């Protein structure tokens, strides 16, 4: 239930940011809008992710540095007169992560140097990755592993089991959330 309140909270914050001012009318209408949105489009999994602020900051920093490097690399590949691209498609394996974190990984891989996520495979968890500059499967797997370790530290597993595997279960099968799709 608290997870739901949290969702209402940040949806309201987005609403207030859009209107550009914290006034009672904005906050009230934001609360109403958030409630309507959550009723009309219920979210399947409301299991909140725990965030480790320190590793979260490291993850954001690593990601931004990767984005700058990726942009510079692609910019050079675009403007250099004779292009020597060797595009290939590789597969990199992922550790067991809850769905939200797998999506985060897929997004982050797309914005870091040389790689673009093509497909997310469920079983076993893996990413199909398009590589622009002929990087080897080993180097791409190393990058993905580094990112996965950062993601796991930034979002430590919650729950009694202490393992992300528990959160891997399909949200539809969880008793407290069954039938909410």
């Amino acid at each position: 239930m608290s997870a739901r309140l949290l969702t209402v909270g940040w949806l309201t914050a987005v609403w207030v940011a859009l209107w550009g001012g914290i006034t009672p009318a904005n906050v009230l209408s934001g609360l109403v809008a958030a409630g309507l949105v959550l009723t009309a489009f219920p979210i399947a999994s409301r299991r909140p992710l725990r965030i480790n602020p320190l590793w979260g900051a490291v993850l954001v920093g690593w990601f931004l540095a990767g984005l700058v490097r990726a942009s510079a690399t692609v910019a050079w590949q675009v403007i250099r007169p004779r292009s020597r691209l060797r595009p290939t498609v590789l597969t990199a394996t992922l550790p067991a992560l809850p769905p939200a974190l797998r999506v985060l990984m897929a997004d982050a891989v797309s914005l870091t140097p040389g790689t673009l996520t093509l497909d997310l495979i469920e079983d076993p968890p893996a990413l199909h990755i398009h590589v622009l500059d002929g990087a080897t499967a080993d180097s791409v797997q190393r990058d993905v592993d580094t990112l996965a370790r950062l993601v796991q530290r930034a979002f430590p597993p919650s729950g009694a089991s202490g393992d992300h595997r528990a959160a891997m279960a399909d949200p539809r099968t969880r008793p407290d959330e069954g039938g909410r799709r």
Partner: protein
Amino acid sequence: MIDVLTSIAVITGAALALVAAIGVHRLPDVLSRMHAATKPATLGILLVLIGVALRDGRLAVIAKVALVAALQFLTAPTGAHMVGRAVHRDTTEHDDDLDPVDGV
């Protein structure tokens, strides 16, 4: 000082957006073009937004800018992922050659 930082951010951002556009035109196939459409374009928009936030400085504007940046970071790779997946599945169903998408 703020003006200098704003100019650097906005000009670099606009240049990256231009490079992204050139890349979409110049790179050889759909998947390579998605690289250009995601990374430099996203960083370019981020830099322009930083410039706007620096220049204006009002909390309401900064909040909106942060919202735009967050949505950009969510949607740009997702869009590229969707296009990439469609091309990938379409080409790998028939054969492993990525060339058939060339020039689409």
